[in-house]
């Protein structure tokens, strides 16, 4: 892995009204690095993830992507977002379109690719995530795990420089978590830059280059997974791990 920063958050602060959800968060993600963000609910990890493609605006601090400050709005922001894939907890596949059309939409409408090119790549991606046979179905006809894999394919179709995963398995039935994590693990192995917000400690151990632990809006500590899980430095992280790893 080169140590070339792709995503740089510097002293980011965000309030929801009186609630201080991000407190002076600074985090650097290198190209090809997989950072897994864990922490208790309400710790600000989803907000952090969503701030990187400006689905959440921030009140102070700066976020740079690929060397450039995030654009505030308009065409420049749309272009940035097209370079950052996003996978949501609730899949958010376009409900009125087939799976194939979901995956082709971005390349066709944002990139202006030809139908043939977009279709070929979409089918290859659906095959890769193991749902090629579902291409012509509507999202509602697929299981949660299949929908989330389709959503990953939709994000990958834009050939993004980085992928953001906002609790991608939290809405899934337990037996479908594995199939989604498998796709994510293979992406991580191929060198995709990823920020993953999750409660899946197994995934964090296996696929992360670095674990970032958040609590009460602060980035409390960050370390490689072996170090973080084996020897957490902060009291807050020890407390959290003792609760989630007990069972």
């Amino acid at each position, binding site marked *: 892995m080169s140590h070339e920063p792709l995503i740089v958050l510097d002293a980011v602060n965000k309030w929801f009204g009186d609630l201080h959800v991000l407190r002076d968060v600074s985090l650097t993600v290198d190209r090809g690095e997989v950072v897994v963000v864990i922490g208790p609910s309400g710790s600000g990890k989803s907000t952090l993830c969503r701030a990187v493609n400006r*689905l959440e605006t921030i009140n102070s601090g700066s976020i740079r992507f690929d060397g450039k400050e995030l654009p505030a709005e308009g065409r420049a922001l*749309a272009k940035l977002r097209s370079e950052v894939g*996003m996978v949501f907890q609730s899949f*958010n596949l376009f*409900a009125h379109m087939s799976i194939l059309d979901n995956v082709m939409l971005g390349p066709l409408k*944002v990139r202006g690719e030809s139908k043939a090119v977009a279709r070929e790549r979409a089918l290859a991606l659906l095959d890769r995530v193991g749902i090629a046979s579902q291409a012509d179905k509507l999202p509602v006809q697929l299981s949660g795990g299949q929908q989330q894999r389709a959503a990953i394919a939709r*994000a990958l179709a*834009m050939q993004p420089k980085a992928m953001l995963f906002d609790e991608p398995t939290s809405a899934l039935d337990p037996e479908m978590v594995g199939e989604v994590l498998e796709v994510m693990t293979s992406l991580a192995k191929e060198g995709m830059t990823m920020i993953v917000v999750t409660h899946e400690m197994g995934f964090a151990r296996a696929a992360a280059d670095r674990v970032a632990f958040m609590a009460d809006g602060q980035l409390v500590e960050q370390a490689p997974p072996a170090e973080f899980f084996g020897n957490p430095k902060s009291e807050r992280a020890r407390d959290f791990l003792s609760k989630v790893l007990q069972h």
Partner: protein
Amino acid sequence: MDVFLDPANRQAYLDGFLMVLKLTGASALLALVLGMLLAACRVSPVPVLRALGAGWVHLFRNTPLTLIILFCFFGLYSAVGVEFSEDLHVNNYWLAVTGLSAYTAAFVCEAIRSGINTVPVGQAEAARALGLSFSQNLRLIILPQAMRSVVAPLGSVLIALTKNVTIAGVIGVAEASSAMKGLIESNGDQTIAIFAVFALTFVALLVPVGYGFSALANRLVVRR
């Protein structure tokens, strides 16, 4: 019922309803397009457009249609000089369509806006995350889903419009209620029968519209 045995009377009846259909068709189409544009304005991030959309809805939804149609004739045509055609009948027809469309668009706009609110916010977020612009998001993701959820309410708007076009009679457009008035004036002994025939014709026209839109709504509903 022998009033309808006279071919001239039958023709007046048929012409009246033909005019109802012509007014409804043109106004429905224009109101749908205008209503969609207004709904887009009302949800747009541009404050001026939002104000324009809100202003239109408040003004036209809360003004009696009779006033609007009269304004189209006495204000738009007589005072301002807007003329669609030299032919008085054609001119009055388009003046009526103008008023009907402006009025109905306010209701179409509000129906579509309520439809937009049924589309989960995640749909728009996913579209933004892909890099779609606001107008692409609206055209490709939000409106197609919103329109499917408002098919039934739009059916009600269409039914209301079909009945409302009879107000065009006040500026001399020869629609069904004018035809009915003419027939009653010359056949005072059959008033009830004439009323019944015109009323039942409206019912016969519009009951299938109601059922049709319900069926269409069921078929087009977006399953989540």
